[in-house]
């Protein structure tokens, strides 16, 4: 891209913004923007994108870190001294001024150096305000830019939302800022107008050639308009990249989920460029360690629907919704739902199969901190998960509850609950699993499929036969791959939570 050669116009170094009440809105943000770039901060509300923009504008000061403009530190420069203008979310037009005076507001305050020559030919530099003629000319040009010629005398209160938006843009660009900041400027417009304005803004960016920094929570807007997208979450940058990069190669499951619709599966690498999820070994293009736990992202439009037996994985359609251009269908594979978009509808209940191409499988490393399973409670108040049955403490499902003589759970309120067949989420820590050669001793049986030495301990993965459930845990003892072992988990280490509230 041409931008790559251009210099950095603004640079954020280690920016942190902590509010008085202790909440950290922006944390450790490092970022630079190149001259002439259209960059978008994208994220859900409360992700710190607006705070970051406010710090660039000067309305907020970073608690830590520096903001450089053309290499100069501007962290402590007040907003009126920065060559940066903002288009505000709710326009912030001055209601007591008409369109012309709103746009001329910045120009009337502006002072510029003018060089004169006196009779002796010496140069005299004077600081002067812009003349009325100059101001009128610039305002006219700005109004033309936003297609509002002839609106000079109108009161801003009589303008429609879209027209107010244009005045707000004109008011900012008329000052010829180095950087234009746009804080969700299209948020208050209706869909059709928003689409039109997106294209117009993009065109304006091309014509003006200044740097645009845009803030939005609308991923589609970001993808349409930007050269670069910065995805943020909880005050931290998740990924910086071009729209194509962000869409096709999301760095983590958050980005994948936020940008467009996606299926996110947990998978395991089973070989060189081979990943296993929804019960099939798919070829892929990303290289990861064998047996590494990964998140797999597949876009719904990248899944090909075939007749049963023709594809890689078989399943059954459980829902189908018409979405205008395509149908959005959900296929059930085992217990996993796969969202598919296709122009050809498959009826609910139909047996189908799917094909996913290696290029469309996006793999991201997973932060693995505990084993998570879906399970259910038995009549004996044990829990079944991961192809095994384990003793557990069911009273943790309800605070201050206890079991009566017949095995019913009595809650703190004195209610009697039968837990048989109740679905639960099961969580087991990496340090809470032991294995034994004695296959009668544990709750589940499997083979060791991976042993990774982690400095002072080994990380093992045991996989069961039936549903290929994995148990990941740390141990100090040496084992061999392919040893057949049983899984032992102490009763108190099995953490249970209700999948959903039971009807009483």
């Amino acid at each position, binding site marked *: 891209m041409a931008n790559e050669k251009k210099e950095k116009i603004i640079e954020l170094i280690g920016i942190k913004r902590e509010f*008085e009440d202790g909440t950290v809105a922006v944390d450790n943000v490092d970022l630079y923007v190149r001259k002439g770039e259209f960059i978008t901060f994208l994220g859900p509300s409360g992700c710190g994108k607006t705070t970051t923009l406010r710090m660039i504008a000067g309305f907020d000061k970073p608690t830590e870190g520096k903001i450089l403009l053309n290499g100069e530190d501007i962290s402590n420069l007040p907003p009126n001294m920065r060559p940066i203008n903002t288009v505000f979310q709710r326009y*912030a037009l001055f209601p007591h001024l008409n369109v012309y005076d709103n746009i001329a507001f910045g120009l009337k*305050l502006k002072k510029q150096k003018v060089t004169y020559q006196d009779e002796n030919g010496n140069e005299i530099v004077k600081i002067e305000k812009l003349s009325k003629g100059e101001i009128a000319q610039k305002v006219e040009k700005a109004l033309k830019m936003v297609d509002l010629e002839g609106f000079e005398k109108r009161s801003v209160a009589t303008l429609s939302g879209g027209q107010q938006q244009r005045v707000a843009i004109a008011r900012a660009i008329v000052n010829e800022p180095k950087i234009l900041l746009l804080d969700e400027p299209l948020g208050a417009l209706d869909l059709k107008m928003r689409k039109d304005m997106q294209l117009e803004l993009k065109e304006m960016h091309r014509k003006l050639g200044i740097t645009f920094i845009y803030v939005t929570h609308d991923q589609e807007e970001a993808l349409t308009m930007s050269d670069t997208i910065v995805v943020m979450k909880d005050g931290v940058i998740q990924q910086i990249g071009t729209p194509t990069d962000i869409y096709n190669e999301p760095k983590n499951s958050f980005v994948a989920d936020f940008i467009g619709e996606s299926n996110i599966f947990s998978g395991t690498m089973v070989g060189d460029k081979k990943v296993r999820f929804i019960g099939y070994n798919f070829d892929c293009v990303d290289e990861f360690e064998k047996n590494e736990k990964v998140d797999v992202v597949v876009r719904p439009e990248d899944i090909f629907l075939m007749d049963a037996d023709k594809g890689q994985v078989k399943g059954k359609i459980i829902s189908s919704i018409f979405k205008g251009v395509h149908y959005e269908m959900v296929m059930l594979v085992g217990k996993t739902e796969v969202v598919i978009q296709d122009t050809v509808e498959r009826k609910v209940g139909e047996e189908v199969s799917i094909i996913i191409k290696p290029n469309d499988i996006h793999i991201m490393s997973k932060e693995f901190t505990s084993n998570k399973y879906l399970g259910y409670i038995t009549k004996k108040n044990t829990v079944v998960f991961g192809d095994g049955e384990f003793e557990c403490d069911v009273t943790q499902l309800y605070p201050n509850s206890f079991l009566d003589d017949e095995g019913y759970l009595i809650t703190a309120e004195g209610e009697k609950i039968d837990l048989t067949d109740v679905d639960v989420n099961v969580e087991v820590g990496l340090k809470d699993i032991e294995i034994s050669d004695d296959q009668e001793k544990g709750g589940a049986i499997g083979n060791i499929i991976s042993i990774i030495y982690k400095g002072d301990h080994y990380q093992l993965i045991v996989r069961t036969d039936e549903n290929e459930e994995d148990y990941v845990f740390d141990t100090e003892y040496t084992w061999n791959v392919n040893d057949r072992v049983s899984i032992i988990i102490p009763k108190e280490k099995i953490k249970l939570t209700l999948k959903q509230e039971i009807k009483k």
Partner: protein
Amino acid sequence: MIKKFFARGWVFLVLAFIYIPIFILIVYSFNNGKTIGVWEQFSFKWYGKLGEIKDVVLNTVLLAVISATIATILGTLGAIGLYYSKGKFGKVVNGASQIPVVNSEVVTACALVMLFMIIGAEHRSLFGLYVGHIVLTAPFVVLSVIPKLKQMDSSLYEAALDLGATPTQALFKVVLPEILPGVFTGFMLAVTLSLDDYIITATLAPLGYDTISTAVYKAIALTTEKASEQVPIYRALTTVIFIITLSVVVISNVRAQKIAKRKGVK
């Protein structure tokens, strides 16, 4: 039908209680005699004597306008400061600024007397009187400006800074025009309160310095022969004030209607 009759009758009764006394006063201001209830002859005699109390009127108007102007400036700045002050300190100051509004005037007056005595100043002085009226009215200005600030889009101030205005320029060019209706209401409120005030004026005014309220009181209490002579003149003054007030109300209502009509056409 009967219900309607009673409803109307009730409204009429209420209005009668408000306006009949004023009406009687106006009628007797044109009476040649001194006593209400004894009609002697139609005359403009008391209007001719209005000049006798011109000092009192001037004192009152000057006091009202000057103290209200100062109170409006202080109150507006105070309101802006309060609105932007954050945290615990802001809350405390905000609460404290509203106490004078609900506080009894007698307390304010006595407190001021004590303050002047403590700092060793003469407690009856023109300066003290003005201070008293400003203390009385400024909180009402704050009270009428704060809602306007709350209504204002908070990004307007930031927008002004963003476009290159210094904080002072932003205040005068953007914030002030936005809250001007509140400032004006506050000023009018301050003028009215000051015009009406008796307790603070009676407590703090220099001896022999009278405003309309203290003068009327003295006249009615018949403290001196001269004062009793002046009672009918105040009837004439009341009539004049009433007519001025009435015309102001009528004119402003007509103007408001015209503006509403013009906006309606658009």
